[in-house]
Structures are given as structure tokens and as C-alpha cells.
């Protein structure tokens, strides 16, 4: 579920720009992020930050009235490893269908021969 969310989070260009800013500056406020991205207003940045937060990609820290955002160090790693795990599973499903096709054709040919 989270993998899916993280994937969606990365699909948007503005969100990727936000991630780049956070990756380069380290922890920063929504205002600092909005200042670094041209042509995107502060409200838009806030709503994108909400998406990034719920998908486990960035973490939020509150200090008084201010909110600071940083990359969740676990988030990307989790997403990437779950992606790889998904590949392992689908490749085994492929192996299953190929091996079973071969095994059943082998059985049939034995039957025909018999």
C-alpha cells in the first residue's frame, strides 16, 4: 500500500522538485521550499507536502508555529526494496507458468507415447 503511495508521490513533477530541494538543503520550512521552486505558490507546495508526508516520503517536525520538512530516511529505501521484492515475486510467477506448461506438455507426450 505504502509502496503504491510512494510511487504516486514520485510521479508528479512538482513533488520531485520539492524532494530535490529538501535533499539538497536538508530540513527546511514550507516557505523555504516554495521560495526555491519557481511558479508554484505556497498553498500548492503545502498540499504537495501533505501528499509526500502521507506516503511516508517526508517527515514533518513542528516547532511553535513553524513546520519543518525533511526526507524520511526510511521512506525511499522501503519503496525501492518493496519494488525489488515485487520483481522477485512476479519473476517466480513467470517461472511457475513456464515450468507448469513444460511439465504438463511432458505428461501429455508421455501419455501419447503410452
Amino acid at each position: 500500500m505504502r509502496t503504491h503511495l510512494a510511487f504516486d508521490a514520485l510521479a508528479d513533477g512538482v513533488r520531485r522538485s520539492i524532494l530535490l530541494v529538501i535533499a539538497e538543503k536538508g530540513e527546511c520550512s514550507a516557505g523555504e521550499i516554495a521560495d526555491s521552486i519557481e511558479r508554484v505558490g505556497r498553498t500548492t507546495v503545502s498540499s504537495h507536502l501533505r501528499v509526500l508526508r502521507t506516503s511516508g516520503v517526508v517527515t514533518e517536525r513542528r516547532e511553535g508555529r513553524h513546520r519543518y520538512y525533511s526526507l524520511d530516511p526510511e521512506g525511499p529505501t522501503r519503496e525501492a526494496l518493496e519494488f525489488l521484492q515485487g520483481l522477485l515475486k512476479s519473476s517466480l510467477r513467470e517461472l511457475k507458468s513456464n515450468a507448469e506448461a513444460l511439465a504438463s506438455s511432458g505428461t501429455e507426450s508421455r501419455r501419447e507415447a503410452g
Partner: protein
Amino acid sequence: MGFVVLLADETVAARPDVVYGLFGARQGAGWVFAADCDVLAVGSAVTLHLPMGVGQAAVDVLGRVASLAPPRQIVIALDQPWCGRLRVRLDQAGAESTRVTVSAEIDERGVEWLLRRRGWPARQPADKGEYRIGLLTSKSGPGAVFAVACENLAAMAVDELNADGGLHGRRVRLLVADDATDPATGASEARWLIRAGCRVVLASVTSATFSAVERAVGDSGVPLVHTVLNEGGGGPGHVFRWGERPADQLATAAVPLMRTSGARHWFLVGDDYSWSHGAHRAARQVLPQAHGMVVGERFVPLGTKDFEPVIEAITWSGADLVLSTLVGADEVAFERQCLAMGLRARCRTLSLVLDESTRERIGDSAAAGLWTAFGYFQQLPTAENRAFLARYRDTFGPWAPPVSTLSESTYSAVHLYGIAARHARQDDRGQVVAELQRLRAILPRGSVELTGPHQIRQQLRLAEAAAGGFRLLAPAR
């Protein structure tokens, strides 16, 4: 270094020996990641094809068979784009059924690579006051075949620098980036290496990527070193082009090959970018001087898999010699198809980027009899080389990929830079650059001399691909 292990399993309605027998059987996507392998034997090369998702090219994962226990277990040691083991276990789970369990190790470098490839922004490593050296190499794309041991060997050289006190009192740290054999990716990764504070960027990549890197970050003044063989070129004093030159390779190999074979009619095959174009220009100068004749030429896009039209053109041209300047996976596919289409019976081949790793992926039968010329081969019978290979095997184990001129030159580039940095009295870039333009050193390949930014003097050796490696041939007189 830490590992993560991923697990997956599946029950298959077939006997273990049937499932086992499918491995590498060339039935398309028949096995785990469509594993591709000529001979299922311990030590033999395996390529897995990793689908990276919609709109992204599949990544070839390169490794070799580390152990076999038929029909119960296959273990593959992975080299590229990450190191780790892939273990497949087959357990009988009923009369006609098998439980298949796959475990995949992935190391920290691998996780980092996967994050970048998945589109996550690069993390800036925390600065602990180290002296940073950047390595740009091809961990994916067609170039991954020739670049396979570069990262290992750069890391080994950095460890040796650190064992010797680091540079200017600081610990040396290697940062590695993957150009995916793509110039635009290479340029942006080089920018990242420089932003991360690398004092030099060593590039074990194609000439196309190196040119893009030079355009992108040449102005930074940070020394850029093309470590591997290349077609040459000019540029400012901090842009270094080391490695073998095609004209020297041809001078070493083409005349003896014509004399041995009695053949004279050359067909030139290359990838359509600056390296092959430069190498073919050199061939058109060198070959006629030795009474050779160019009867045909073809360029294909980098990443070509089907060489049938090219091989037909060679057949029709009447050529009896082939000069291949194809690189990496392209060279592997071309040589295999030449054998399959019967071209070996009528043509001898000189290949300019036939290093140990590429030879191994071509396979013993398709590689046998191909000639090449480089400054380094694993077979060099010198004490320096034996000690170097022993350190490599001690560090990376028996299943690490073979060393080649491309990876040895990456190792050597780290050391040459280290020597220059130590010669410089202060930690000053201008002084290091000046030192790099006048250096002599004894390296695993022998003695070399750097003269100016664009030349390295070294001895080239002629060799013929044989089962399991290369046979060094006596130099031409």
C-alpha cells in the same frame, strides 16, 4: 558493509529437476529474471534482466554461478549493478510439485543505486572532512559489461591510499555514480559528484559520456580524467585523456594479424558515436600503410542487439578481416552472432574493446581466436601484476569479475592522482594538475609516463582470446 535480504517463494506444479533444468535454457523469460547463461557450471557468466517499470529500459544484472547442487540449489554471485548473492532453492513439495525460494542480497551501494534509478534525489553524504574522489562508471546500460570491475578496483586503490595515510592528512572517500551508459545522465551525475565536493572525477565511461561531462562541468576547474581507452582529443589542461589510443592498438595488432592470416580486406564495424568514428579514422590511416584495404564500414546505434544486417553486409563485401570497435553488450551480441552465422570461417577479427569481462560474456566458443591489443591483461607475467591480482582476489573473493585493462586503469588512475596530490607541496588544485602532467609510475600494467594532459605512454600487448582468458602473443618485429 551491510546487506538487506529479500525473500520470495512460490509453489510450482512440476518436479524439482524440471524446474532446475529450465535455468538458462534460453526460452525467453523462463527463469528468475530471464536468467541467461551458456553453460550451467560453477564460474560461468550469468545475465539477469531486471524490468524497471513502464517507460524504463530493463537493467542487465551481471553475475556468475557461485555454486550448484542439482536439482536443489543454484547460487549466483552478482557483480553489477550491485554486489550480493542470489540464492534459489528447490524443495520437493509433493510428488509433482516444488517449492521455489529465492533470496536476494543487496548491499548498501546497491540500495543507493536502486534509489537513484527509482528517481529518488541523491543524498548528500555527511561531510566528515574526508578527501573525496568521484568515480563515474557504467553500472547499467550496454557499458556495464566493460565497466564491471571498475568500482571494486577504485575502492581497492582508495583503501590502499588510506592505508598509506590518506591525502594531505585526510581520509580518502570514494563517491560512485552511474551514467547508465547515457551522456545526459552522466553529465548530471558528474554535477552531483562535484556538488558533493569531489576533488577529481575519474570517468570509466564511453567517450560520449566523457564529452558530455566535459561540457557540463569542465568550467568547474575540477580535474576530469577519462581513465579508459579512448579516441583522444584536446581540451584544457585539467581535462585528462588517458588510456590506450586506437592508432596504437592498430599498430600493435593489425599488421601481425594480416601477416598471420594472409588477409588484407577489412570491414569496419562500430557504434555510432565519437569513439568508433575516431577509431575508424585511425584505421583508415594505419591500415593502408600496412597494405590493408578498407572494403566496407557500418555504424550501429549503441545498444543494438540484432547484427544480422551488418553480418550480411560483411559477407557480401568480400572482407576477410573485421575490425570491431563495438563496445560492451553490443560487442557481445555481435561476436556471438558472427559465430552463429558462420562468419568465423571466412573472416579473422580484431576487436578494440575486447577486455576480459567482455570476452567472458561473449563466451569461450564465440570469443576463441579474436585478437585485441591493450596495455593490461590478467596474464601479464610480472611480480607487480601477480601481487595486484592476489590483493584483488583477497579483497573481493573468487567470484569477483575478472580484472581488465579498463578496471586496472581505473585503479591506476586513483593511484596516479594520489601520487600527484602527494607530490604537490600544498593541497592545491593547480599544483596537483601540474603534477598530473608529468608523472612516471610503476603500475600493474608496467611502467607508464604521463606527458601532458592527453597522453599516457605505456607498452601495448597483443593477445588472442582463448578458453577462459587470453593468450599473450609475441610482439611484432
